């Protein structure tokens, strides 16, 4: 079942533990160590909404080529507590090596038939001084097993724990060394492992997750102000920007609620700031009135929505793509908006920067739609192109006759800010005239609505076209958006069919101009979305009349696994 997706130069391992067992430290350290040793690495953690206990897991893939998706296949499974294998039974096969202590392995696997490496991790950690060392020992084991240089490993452990005092750093280095010995021994004892080629380019590359991408894009887009209320999975964007606040002169304010956050962002844009709010679906629901305000006062606004499964609190720490229509239809009244959904860290960086440019240029709200999978998964990025100049302010110096809402052909009125020039900047949530004063004049009202909507026309010239993977005009076409890019792309590689291509949208609204033309060339179209009702398919149908012939949907809170996509595509293609 799983062999088809198995590529020889690719290894997947999964560590399953309780919250509080240090999986996050393991993941961060492990991906760094692998990357610096020249291995392409990908990792994804799924975790429960709790601080201690339960069961969480981290999947790490190492490969000779760039990969950025989860596999169902687990080549090495490490259970760190009793019952740690339970949720993964369907993914364990006789080819899965189970590594760790026997007490934590399900009986079903210890009776023979499954390759087992009995390693007393708890005892080893106890000898080092406590169970806190399990994660670092494990990092050592995998480093030894995959031939990472010992110096590199120890250097990274020193960097990771140096701050907490020399004693703890030394103890962790000793733990890493113990694990490394074990791992190297396993390697020497001839456990058959695929040889994964290393590359110097990877050593020099960037290691990033989606949070890094969004945050770097904010900085490159000239973001100066962040007001938000914590909400998983978007909080880490706020946290990371707060960490960079001093270095980058950012004003970071944790608001009392999302209503305040969005109104602060609008106040900041009004006064010349470039503001971001970061939230998830529920927080965005509270921001909706502010979104409409942005529409009326024609304020730029950048909203990052890290999607998680709803409705309501839903699955707070898990992933979904079910807020597209929420982002699309939120807000009373009619006004233009732009919705972007990056598929890779490279795109996240470029599109977040683009979000600031477009918000500023068209004086519209721009929504950046990511999700927990996108934000939390780590991968190797070769290069990010930092443009020169970084960004341009669309703000103008005002003269005494300045009118904030001057009617223009494009619908864009030059935007002044208070205190810059001799004019006055007057914005009103009531319908207003060109100066910004309240009016109920029917002609002015109509002119203002037309002016605001006219901006959509100009925006069409700056659409981000969808990315086509595979041949143009293929018989079959898979269509996706946002975070599904890596898994669908990899699935197409596995299938290796010349009659199948993948069209990925990172600008989901307004639909890019050539959408119909590209979709029309294929005979059968399949949509893939991490939601239950195929929201993007509905959007395409509404705007183009094009109907999808097949749907691949997932809404259990987990991202698509590579094999799932491969099998479901195969099943659909077989039917036709």
């Amino acid at each position, binding site marked *: 079942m799983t062999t088809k997706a198995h590529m020889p130069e690719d290894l997947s391992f999964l560590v399953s533990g309780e919250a509080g067992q240090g999986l996050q430290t393991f993941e961060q350290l492990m991906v760094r160590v692998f990357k610096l040793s020249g291995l392409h690495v990908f990792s994804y953690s799924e975790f429960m909404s709790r601080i201690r206990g339960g069961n969480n897991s981290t999947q790490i893939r190492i490969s000779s080529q760039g990969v950025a998706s989860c596999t169902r296949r687990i080549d090495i499974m490490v259970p760190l507590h009793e019952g740690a294998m339970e949720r993964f039974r369907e993914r364990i096969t006789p080819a899965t090596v189970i590594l760790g202590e026997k007490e934590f392995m399900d009986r079903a696997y210890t009776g023979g038939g499954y390759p087992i490496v009995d390693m007393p991790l708890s005892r080893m950690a106890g000898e080092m001084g406590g169970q806190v060392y399990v994660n670092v020992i494990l990092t050592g084991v995998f480093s030894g097993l995959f031939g990472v240089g010992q110096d590199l490993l120890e250097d990274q452990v020193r960097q990771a724990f140096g701050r907490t005092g020399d004693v703890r750093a030394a103890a962790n280095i000793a733990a890493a060394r113990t694990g490394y010995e074990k791992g190297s021994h396993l390697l020497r004892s001839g456990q058959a492992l695929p040889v994964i080629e290393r590359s110097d380019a990877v050593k020099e590359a*960037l290691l990033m997750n989606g949070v890094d991408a969004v945050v770097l894009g904010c900085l490159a887009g000239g973001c100066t102000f962040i007001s938000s209320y914590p909400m998983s999975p978007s909080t880490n964007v706020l946290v990371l920007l707060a960490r960079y606040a001093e270095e980058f002169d950012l004003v970071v304010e944790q608001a009392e609620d999302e209503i305040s956050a969005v109104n602060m962002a609008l106040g900041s844009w009004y006064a010349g700031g470039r503001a971001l709010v970061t939230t998830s679906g529920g927080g965005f629901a509270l921001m909706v009135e502010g979104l409409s305000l942005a529409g009326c006062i024609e304020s730029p606004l950048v909203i990052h929505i890290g999607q998680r499964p709803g409705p309501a609190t839903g699955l707070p720490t898990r992933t979904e793509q079910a807020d597209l229509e929420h982002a699309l239809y939120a807000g009373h009244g009619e006004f233009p908006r732009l919705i972007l959904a990056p598929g890779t860290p490279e795109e996240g960086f470029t599109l977040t920067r683009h979000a600031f440019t477009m918000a500023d240029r068209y004086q519209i709200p721009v929504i950046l739609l990511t999700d927990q999978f996108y934000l939390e998964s780590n991968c190797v990025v070769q290069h990010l192109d930092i443009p020169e*100049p970084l960004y341009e302010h669309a703000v103008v110096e005002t003269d005494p006759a300045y009118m904030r809402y001057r009617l223009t052909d494009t619908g864009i009125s030059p935007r002044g800010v208070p*205190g810059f020039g001799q004019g006055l900047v007057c914005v009103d949530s009531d319908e207003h005239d060109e100066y910004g004063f309240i009016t109920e004049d029917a002609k002015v009202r109509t002119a203002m609505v037309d002016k605001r909507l006219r901006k959509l026309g100009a925006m069409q010239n700056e659409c981000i076209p969808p990315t086509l993977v595979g041949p143009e005009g293929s018989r079959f076409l898979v269509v996706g958006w946002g975070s599904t890019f890596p898994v669908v792309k990899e699935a197409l590689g596995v299938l290796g069919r010349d009659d199948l291509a993948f069209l990925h949208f990172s600008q989901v609204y307004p639909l890019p101009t050539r959408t119909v033309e590209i979709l029309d060339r294929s005979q059968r179209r399949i949509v893939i979305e991490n939601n239950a009702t195929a929201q993007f398919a509905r959007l395409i149908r509404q705007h183009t009349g094009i109907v999808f012939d097949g749907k691949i949907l997932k809404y259990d809170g987990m991202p698509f696994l590579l094999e799932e996509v491969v099998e479901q595509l195969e099943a659909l293609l077989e039917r036709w």
Partner: protein
Amino acid sequence: MAAEFDLDHHTDVAWCPGCGNHSILAALKATLVELGLRPESLVLVSGIGQAAKTPQYLKANFFNGLHGRSLPVATAVKLTNPGLTVIAESGDGCMYGEGGNHLIHAVRRNPDITAVVHNNMVYALTKGQASPTSTRGFVTPVQVSGVCTDPLNAIALAVALNASFVARAFSGDRERTAEILKQAITHRGFALVEILQPCVSFNRVNTFQWFREHSYYLDDSHNPSDREAAFAAASQGDRFALGLIYRNTGVPAMTDCHSAYRRDNRPLFRRPADRGRIEALLNRKRT
């Protein structure tokens, strides 16, 4: 009076004749002139309601936003350009009802802005429903048997939150209102000024005469730095104390707490982009 803040154009004022808003607007304009402020460096932020229309009737930059949301906007304006004088102005429904949570947190943040709350104890623009400050027993088309809650005492609340400046004025006394506004605007930190004001159309209980009879000015014996005395003045049930009730100079203004303003007081839009810093950050992601 100098016409510095008078509008250049004629406008159809939406306030009723005899409304306290007219006096408050006049007091505000007089204060702004006296302080030597310029319209270009003044930002008025308001929510929704009749009081929130104030920015429409004088010459200044303004942000007339959403009901209840003037304080987050005003806070951010100041935090983005500390050189601007920022005044948030709205009614009791907007500031104490819909925006009550923001008021609490604005007091805690202590941005250097002035919040002027017109308190007429009724929702006027929506035609006469109870406001958070309506008195017990006040009968309205919604509270048909009379209001059965105690009015919100925002002055006492602000003192409880250790606000940096808390004052109350009465729209009937234009000069003393202007004097209080002057102190509030020049105060460095968050200044709350509640202005008692009759609503001639929808409040037949709390009339001009009623406010006269139910208010008094604090005299020189009141020490605004004494928090207990301020509590006592704020908590009197039968009469409203007017004047500066509480001043706490020990709390830093919000901008002083932000690293962006530690070395540099320029507004955010005046700061140049620095490509080198981003490159350096990217390089850190390589090792």
